[in-house]
């Protein structure tokens, strides 16, 4: 039980994918202009990340390992992920056009959100089991969404602040992300690994 809690704490806070591990940064910067869309992106990512974490675990365990094709891991994972994403995209497009438009090019980019492949690869590296893989993906996504939504809310405030001209927009957003990452260093040492 404790092991599972540790996985969650580790992925959400200590080794936050965005701020500490540097994964999933592009959507982090790109879909954080409004908290509402950030929330949508967070949901979509959580769904995709958990699902593809599990799928890639299964593919690795039942296909690649038995066939001794580990070197094809990247290629297979990425296709499985692309599939999960495109499937999600189709469904979202049908059911929520606004969310679809808001996520814009970022829904396809979830596929290329390196967090997704990162989760899959890190799972294999850590030799995580099924439940661990699922939790790892889920925790990473929750950490991602949490940081994304707060970041979006912060950016909304920056938007109205008197920021020097060259810093307006992405530059100050990155500085903010840096300060957030600095704050997250406070979690360092909580859990190993």
């Amino acid at each position, binding site marked *: 039980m404790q092991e599972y809690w540790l996985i969650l704490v580790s992925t959400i806070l200590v080794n936050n994918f965005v701020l500490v591990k540097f994964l999933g940064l592009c959507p982090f910067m790109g879909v954080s*202009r409004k908290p509402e869309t950030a929330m949508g992106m967070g949901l979509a990512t959580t769904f995709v990340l958990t699902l593809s974490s599990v799928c890639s675990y299964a593919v690795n365990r039942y296909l690649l390992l038995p066939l001794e094709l580990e070197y094809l891991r990247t290629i297979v994972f990425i296709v499985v992920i692309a599939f999960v994403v495109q*499937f999600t995209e*189709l469904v979202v497009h*049908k059911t929520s056009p606004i969310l679809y*438009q808001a*996520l814009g090019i970022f829904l396809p980019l979830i596929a290329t959100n390196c967090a997704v492949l990162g989760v899959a690869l890190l799972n294999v590296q850590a030799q995580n089991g099924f439940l661990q893989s699922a939790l790892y993906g889920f925790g990473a996504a929750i950490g991602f969404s949490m940081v994304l939504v707060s970041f979006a809310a912060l950016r909304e405030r920056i938007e109205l602040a008197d920021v020097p001209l060259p810093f307006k927009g992405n530059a100050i957003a990155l500085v903010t992300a840096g300060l957030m990452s600095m704050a997250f260093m406070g979690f360092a040492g909580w859990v190993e690994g």
Partner: protein
Amino acid sequence: MLWICLLFAILGVILGYAAFRFKVEGEPLVVEIEALLPQTQCGQCSFPGCKPYAEAIAQGKADINQCPPGGEVGVKALADLLGLDAKPLDESFGIEKEKKVAVIVEADCIGCTLCIQACPVDAILGAAKYMHTVIASECTGCDLCVEPCPVDCIVMSPIKPSVLNWQWPEPIQNRH
């Protein structure tokens, strides 16, 4: 290898089916975009009216900064809706001007009805050979009637400030 190709093929089948099953008809987004456009119907955005422009935006064929009457505020609203960065108005489509209304100098009007045909929102009243007038409250200030008038009797005049349209001014900010 065969196994993997088989896996991919199965995924392909599912995707193909999903694409068919979840096909989206129409773009509800157009309605939302159009609601943000000023409906001046002036065509400055290079489209014949606000709706065509909205459609073009939804399909990604036009940028969001092409509507001068909407101005910076309009661009920002569009950017918010679409989750994009706001940007300055594209000046090649015109610049944001103070809103005006058309006034027909009645003495000069010859009643040619050309302006009636030009007005996209039916804001001009009149009949052939009779003096025409602009219904000020319905005029969007699009300028389109000025050009066709053969005797140049339509002038665009600024809206007069009065207690009825007066707005509380924002305090003068001393930081900029």
